[in-house]
């Protein structure tokens, strides 16, 4: 009796939910009457997408991308090991846990080091809540050392700058010297004394006055000097 009722219910439900007969059409995979837009005509969206990618890449390698250092450090195996089975041993030798330098690492892209956050954040009470900056040391970094341009090379930027400064300084000195020599050529011998005084004063030109106190092997001419070795 119950089976019959159940079957009856099933049929009734099936009859009520059924749709009308629909003509099935064959599915066209490549319809020919579709007009496709020009592939090269979407410059605006391309620009937007490019900027998105650039910004995302910048943030990923910026100091603002905070990574948990603890996750990157090698994890020591737990002690004591309850069941030293071969599965455990394999776990200890897992490459994720122990960081061993491999030859293939040479060709892997090197992880760029990020500058510390304090380089770019001005940790003052006017800019951030007190409770967040109380513990941190407010180190005043030299602004010229900050790397605002991520494309510049990491290793040699500072050295290049120092080198450039030195070269500029040398050029300036040479230019000054040349200018003074030109001036002295125009005027006559009256300025010879000035010219000599303009020469770079160093120990070489003042050899007669050079005081060689550190020369212990040559006894001094002046006998009044203290004689350490009697």
């Amino acid at each position, binding site marked *: 009796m119950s089976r019959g009722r159940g079957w009856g219910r099933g049929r009734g439900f099936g009859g009520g939910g059924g749709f009308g007969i629909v003509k099935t059409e064959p599915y066209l995979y490549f319809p020919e009457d579709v007009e496709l837009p020009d592939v090269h005509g979407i410059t605006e969206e391309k*620009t937007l997408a490019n900027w998105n990618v650039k910004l995302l890449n910048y943030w990923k390698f910026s100091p603002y991308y905070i990574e948990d250092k603890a996750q990157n450090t090698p994890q020591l195996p737990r002690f004591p090991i309850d069941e030293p089975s071969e599965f455990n041993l394999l776990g200890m030798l897992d490459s994720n846990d122990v960081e061993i330098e491999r030859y293939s690492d040479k060709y892997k892209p090197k992880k760029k080091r990020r500058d510390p956050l304090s380089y770019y954040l*001005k940790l003052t009470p006017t800019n951030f*809540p007190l409770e*967040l900056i109380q513990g941190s040391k407010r180190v005043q970094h030299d602004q010229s050392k*900050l790397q*605002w*341009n991520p494309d510049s090379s990491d290793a040699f930027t500072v050295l290049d700058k120092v080198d450039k400064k030195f070269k500029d300084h040398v050029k300036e000195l040479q230019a000054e010297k040349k200018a003074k020599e030109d001036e002295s050529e125009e005027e006559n011998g009256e300025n010879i004394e000035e010219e000599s005084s303009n020469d770079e004063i160093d120990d070489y030109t003042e050899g007669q006055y050079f005081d060689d106190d550190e020369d212990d092997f040559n006894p001094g001419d002046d006998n009044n000097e203290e004689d350490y070795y009697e």
Partner: protein
Amino acid sequence: KVCECLLRKGTLTFPEILRYSELPSRKVTVNCVLVLIQHNCVQAFAIERQGAIGVKPRIITQYTAIFENILHRLRFSKFLVIVKEEFGEECEEILIALLQHGRLTLEQFIFRAKEFNKEFSWESFDSLVNARYVERCPLSEPFLSPCDETPPTKKRKFSLTGEITEEQLAIAAAIPSEAERFLVIIDTKTDVTSEALTKENTPNVKLEEKFSLLVSLDLEHS
């Protein structure tokens, strides 16, 4: 994780953020909150909380996520295109710097321009401020008094129901006064660069003011 906590659980104090975010160290959580504030995604505010019976009311700092600003980050590329069309490449450079770093001082702008072998253009900066695309940063920790029921002076509609939440009050309170908000003071008498180098000791606060990006709702419609 920190942002997720603030978005899911609403306004939290820092100890609550520490607990809910479950990050391994306090320093990491602090840095996360600092970065979120730097990029204008979170606003801190101070509020007086009534203590239990016999306990004095104390002032606590709470943090709220600025939902609109977080969503607007998706539109950063569009902002750049609009500013480039309207003001040119120099303004676009200034905007790129602000979008990348969230907030910058004028001194940082100058040093950044040097690194790119360009000169910082005061005119471009002024034009952005005058167009209200760039403004001074909001206050770091505005204080909301408990009986602060006066509606904010800004005419913006905060909610459909007309009720203003504590978070909206905090964000409104953090906005600098209209006189200060778009104020750029440049000392033309002395060399700006040399002033910037000694800024730590000088009382010249003008160069130290930070400028953040003002998200104008009009941009969405343009």
